[in-house]
């Protein structure tokens, strides 16, 4: 009911303030986790997980609810959908930029990471010194969506957002 006073764009603007709990510089909109918003009898927010086991989903759902509640939007349903599957291409341009500034090497555009099929290591640029002389230390990083890299020039370890 209250949600009637808001346009779709208004809701997206509000959700822009909800950050990913693991990567607090990215909003859930930048990340592409918020897939759509439907305004009707109640407000329906459609979200999708980055990884099926992403433990942040519950927190994201709660954060979305409380952000909307701050603006007196109470009748909210947060719906999780799996299909079409989230891929790293869903991260906005703005999101990719913010990732890099935060010290996480962003995923390359175009979803299919051929290196995972061919076993050939791909080129990942160090987010600190921009060297391409970097090395994967572990396929699995601090969260399900990241891999651990190290720069061979500035020696800094950094996270790389895996391309899926």
């Amino acid at each position, binding site marked *: 009911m209250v949600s009637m006073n808001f346009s779709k764009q208004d809701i997206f603007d509000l959700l822009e303030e909800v950050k990913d709990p693991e990567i607090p510089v990215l909003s859930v909109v930048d990340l592409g986790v918020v897939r759509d918003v439907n305004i009707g009898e109640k407000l329906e927010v459609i979200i999708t997980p980055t990884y099926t086991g992403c433990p942040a989903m519950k927190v994201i759902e709660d954060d979305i609810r409380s952000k909307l509640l701050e603006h007196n939007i109470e009748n909210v349903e947060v719906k999780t959908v799996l299909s079409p599957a989230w891929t790293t291409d869903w991260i906005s341009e703005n999101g990719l930029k913010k990732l890099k500034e935060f010290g996480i090497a962003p995923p390359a555009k175009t979803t299919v990471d051929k290196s995972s099929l061919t076993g050939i290591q791909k080129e990942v640029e160090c987010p600190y010194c921009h060297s391409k002389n970097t090395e994967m230390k*572990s396929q*699995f990083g601090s969260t399900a969506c990241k891999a*651990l890299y190290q720069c061979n020039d500035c020696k800094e370890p950094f996270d790389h957002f895996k391309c899926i």
Partner: protein
Amino acid sequence: MNKELYEYVLRMGDDSLILGQRLGEWCGHGPILEEDIALTNIALDVLGQARILMDYAGKLTNKKEDEVAFLREERDYKNVLLVEQPNGDFAQTILRQFFFDAFRLPFFKELQNSKDETLSGLALKAVKETTYHLQHSSNWVIRLGDGTDESHQRLETALEDLWMFTGEFFYADEVDTKLVNEGIAVDVNKIKPIWDAKVSEVFAQAKLQIPENDWMQKGGRQGRHTEHLGFILSEMQYMQRAYPGCEW
């Protein structure tokens, strides 16, 4: 209710759930930090798959996800025996994972075409994750097999222990047949040659021989388990049994 579908979802879900529980046992015990993180990351991915499948099985029977996951008896778990085998040493865990991943990747690729939207949706996501899992476990099988005498020996021992549990992936009964005909389930006969090829390819690099013994232990899909499952369940079900309906 579609009885066969429920059964099929449970089989798939229990494979993920029990393997996730086993991998979770490595948390804080990995041989190196990166592996500790990797094994628990993989645990998280398979638990994510399990949650979707438990939730779906629940919807088919009017139960809650937690009830399906935690309140069944041992005989009602339908996972393959491979995933309940003990972690053993790192070689044992990695080889178990490799056999599983080499099955799951082509399986999920096929499942993407399922007429069941929940299953195809899950498969679409799981393919991407499983690609990383298989790459990781293949690399380790090669490193251990083509590594030191000791690492090779440990992998050989793991192979002797686990080989007889690999036939169960390709066991199909009337549940499979019916659902394959309906365009819902994956025909595991199509997966077998892909699995064989992957195992041969990785074993060749790891300097391992495929065992000649082709006697395969079955039973998990019917709920007949090795003695290990009971111990897993007593730990896994403790919270829901002691505090029924408890939530985080």
